[in-house]
């Protein structure tokens, strides 16, 4: 039913098919990539390449791969050694999102006889494929008899007793050339138990450029029938001057189990445990090194001053470029010697190129006791013209101290095909070029000059300080300030006139009342009431600082109420003004009594309002 449904709706079926396909690809992809990157490497290494016959060496076999279960290595039969498995350790790491794991197998090798033995053919098998490890060599010396005489001599004190400990200093070459590496080795021999690690005061190495090679893992050696533990520390020294140089004394302080206390101490058994003992120090003898100058015979004129043994290569990052596009040429000098002191190769003057030094880089590694590595000089070559241009062979000279002669090495020439970019014009007018810059096709030359001088101004003039700018900004400000000042003054004045009117109000009112009093005869009732009315309204107007014109009885009542007058005052005012109105329109009905009452009421009202404050 559902199948039919799917089949009938074609788009849905298609979608399902696409999803299924994507899922399939996704699921199939990881094994495919794993398979493609499956890579098993075997690294075989020894902790030391020379051991005594009574000692043991440790062999490490490191299997690295991107697969889950790394197979164990197969070791060939090694009849001259007894082999002990010492365990394995595992580690994982992720490089660029690819997980890789490694298993390190450790074996102890105990030799049964002296000689040099190759250890070869260590392999793992995975997916029917065999992966082989590198070859190492182990030299076994019979040191129990082969201890050098001077060491045997050193191992005895003045009375002929064998020493418990001593420090020996040796150099591999007592007559090096200047700047040639010598290896300086400090060997600390100790035949008694010691606590903690020995403390070293480094020797003075004035006149040398010193690189510490580090400590070797300790081993045992038998001298004069006594078994000594030997701790070695090595230095690479480059003499920087000729003549006799001295490597100073090195000093070692170490705590050893003391013989005296050991026999007497009742807690003998804990003596070692608690670290009892005495601290002793022992120093090495200073060593003299006679540094020879480089021979004058056969010294090339272009000698670089570099000492060692090297090879040189030059590689270009591209061999086809447009004119003015940079080509980076990497000149690598690699070999044995003081890498940091390798002088820059001289590049001949090439008219077809502009040359810039871009960078110098070095990597240093150690082969046995000799330091070496690679010094890389990056130079940028910018072709000036199109065509097949050649960067010629670059020659380099150095001094080989092992063979005591100067050597000359050279790079292979590099041919660069310089193409003509689109729109390229032969021009000698462009005076410079630069590294790393792309000159786009629209940018072959500068644009042409302007024909018109344009908007000319006195030089150095800034708009900010022109009078016009200051006026435009200043004038409105002046106007604003002026207007504000004028307005303030007017407002203050207005406030003052209000105060003045309020103060003068009573005086004006009394004047009106006095005039009214002179009009108390009934025949002059209209004038009398007009005067009373004027006295009251003008008083209120002055008191409230409003215009007396157009004030009606109701408006006055409102205003008084608004300005906070009490109800009695309002009522009295109202009554009085209504009486005035009534009398003015019907003067015939006014009696003397009325006039007297009204005058009294007006006087009372004004006196009453005198004591009132209106806000």
């Amino acid at each position, binding site marked *: 039913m559902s199948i039919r449904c799917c089949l009938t709706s074609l788009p849905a079926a298609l979608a399902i098919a696409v999803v299924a396909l994507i899922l399939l690809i996704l699921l199939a992809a990881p094994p495919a990539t794993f398979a493609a990157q499956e890579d098993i490497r075997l690294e075989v290494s020894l902790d030391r390449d020379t051991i005594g016959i009574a000692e043991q060496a440790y062999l490490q076999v490191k299997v690295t791969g991107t697969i889950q279960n790394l197979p164990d290595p197969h070791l060939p039969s090694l009849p001259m050694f007894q082999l002990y498995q010492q365990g394995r350790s595992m580690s994982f790491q992720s490089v660029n999102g690819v997980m890789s794991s490694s298993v390190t197998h450790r074996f102890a090798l105990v030799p049964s006889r002296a000689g040099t033995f190759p250890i070869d053919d260590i392999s793992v098998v995975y997916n029917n494929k065999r992966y082989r490890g590198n070859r190492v060599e182990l030299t076994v010396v019979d040191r129990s008899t082969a201890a050098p005489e001077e060491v045997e001599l050193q191992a005895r004190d003045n009375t002929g007793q064998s020493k418990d400990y001593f420090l020996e200093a040796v150099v591999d070459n007592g007559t090096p050339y200047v700047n040639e590496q010598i290896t300086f080795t400090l060997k600390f021999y100790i035949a008694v138990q010691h606590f903690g690690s020995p403390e070293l005061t480094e020797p003075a190495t004035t006149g040398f450029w010193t690189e510490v090679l580090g400590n070797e893992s300790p081993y045992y050696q038998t001298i004069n029938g006594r078994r000594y533990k030997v701790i070695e520390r090595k230095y690479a020294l480059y003499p920087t001057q000729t003549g006799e140089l001295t490597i100073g004394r090195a000093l070692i302080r170490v705590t050893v189990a003391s013989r005296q206390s050991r026999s007497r101490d009742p807690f003998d058994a804990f003596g070692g445990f608690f670290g009892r003992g005495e601290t002793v120090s022992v120093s090495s003898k200073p060593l003299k090194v006679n540094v020879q100058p480089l021979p004058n015979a056969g010294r090339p004129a272009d000698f670089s001053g570099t000492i060692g043994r090297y090879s040189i290569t030059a590689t270009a990052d591209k061999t086809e470029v447009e004119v003015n596009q940079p080509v980076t040429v990497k000149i690598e000098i690699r070999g044995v010697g003081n890498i940091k002191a390798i002088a820059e190769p001289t590049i001949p003057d090439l008219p077809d190129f502009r040359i*810039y030094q871009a960078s110098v880089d070095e990597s240093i590694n150690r082969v046995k006791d000799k330091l070496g590595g690679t010094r890389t000089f990056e130079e940028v070559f910018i072709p000036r013209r199109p065509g097949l241009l050649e960067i010629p062979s670059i020659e380099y000279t150095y001094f080989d101290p092992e063979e005591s002669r100067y050597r000359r090495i050279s790079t292979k020439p590099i041919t660069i095909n310089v193409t003509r970019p689109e729109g390229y014009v032969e021009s000698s*007018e*462009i*005076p*410079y*070029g*630069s*590294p*790393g*810059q792309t*000159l786009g096709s629209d*940018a072959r*030359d*500068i*644009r*042409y*000059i*302007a*024909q*018109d*001088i*344009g*908007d*000319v*101004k*006195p*030089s*150095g003039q*800034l*708009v*900010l300080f022109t009078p016009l*700018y200051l006026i*435009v*900004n200043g004038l*409105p*400000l002046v*106007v*604003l300030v*002026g*207007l*504000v000042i*004028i*307005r303030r003054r007017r407002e203050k004045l207005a406030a003052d006139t209000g105060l003045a009117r309020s103060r003068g109000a009573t005086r004006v009112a009394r004047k009106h009342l006095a005039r009214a009093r002179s009009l108390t005869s009934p025949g002059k009732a209209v004038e009398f009431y007009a005067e009373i009315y004027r006295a009251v309204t003008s008083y209120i107007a002055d008191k409230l600082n409003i215009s007396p014109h157009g004030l009606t009885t109701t408006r006055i009542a409102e205003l008084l109420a608004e300005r906070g007058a009490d109800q009695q005052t309002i009522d009295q005012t109202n009554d009085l003004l209504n009486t005035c109105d009534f009398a003015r329109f019907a003067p015939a009905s006014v009696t003397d009594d009325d006039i007297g009452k009204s005058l009294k009421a007006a006087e009372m009202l004004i006196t009453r309002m005198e004591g009132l404050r209106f806000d």
Partner: protein
Amino acid sequence: MALALTAGACFAQHQDYHETFAAANQFYADKDYARAIEAYREVIARGVESAELYYNLGNASFKHGDLGHAIANYLKARRLAPDNEDIRHNLEFARRFTAVQMQGVRLNPIETFLESIVGPYTLGQLAWLSSLFFVLLVLALIMRWGLGTGGASVGAVAIALVVLVAVSSTLTTYKYRHEYLRQRAVIIAEQSPVFTGPSQKSEIELQGSPGLVVEILAEKDGFYNVQFENQRRGWIDKELVAEV
């Protein structure tokens, strides 16, 4: 002689620099760049400037092989006309020819932001814009405080204008400080050692190269303490740089 020329130039009628300018252009067209440079400089010596004048002098210097002066003059031209496409193009083009490219140039994000706003405008344009907002603000205040007219709407407009004035005057100040108060110079000499101190006897910090733009921080004993675009500092002989 030079003094007399300068003094004379100051009083000379300004109209005849047009002739000198045209003559300079003609020298340029004839590829006589040395005389073109001389003529353009003569116009400048009369106390006038324009973006076109500096641009043409920059072009002539470039064609004459003087990268340092070319870049210095392009920078002066750009300051007067930042939106001029020709100036921008030639400055960019010329700067590609500096033999040493500065490594590790770090841009201040605030400066970059402000520069992206004020970049295409001259100081004058920004100043007038601030001025416009300021005058409008004052007019609004006149309405409100001076005449006592206008209600809440005038107040709102005034507040908006206060913000506009603050922003535009900040930008103007930035432009002024960045392009006029900050002294800049361009290295002109082929051999231009930059020392650790203001003396030829000091150690050489680095080698300058024509066309590199530096900021002048201080001056002492005929030396400028300069800072390169990648923040490296040193002292350089005043004679080896052209001030912008």
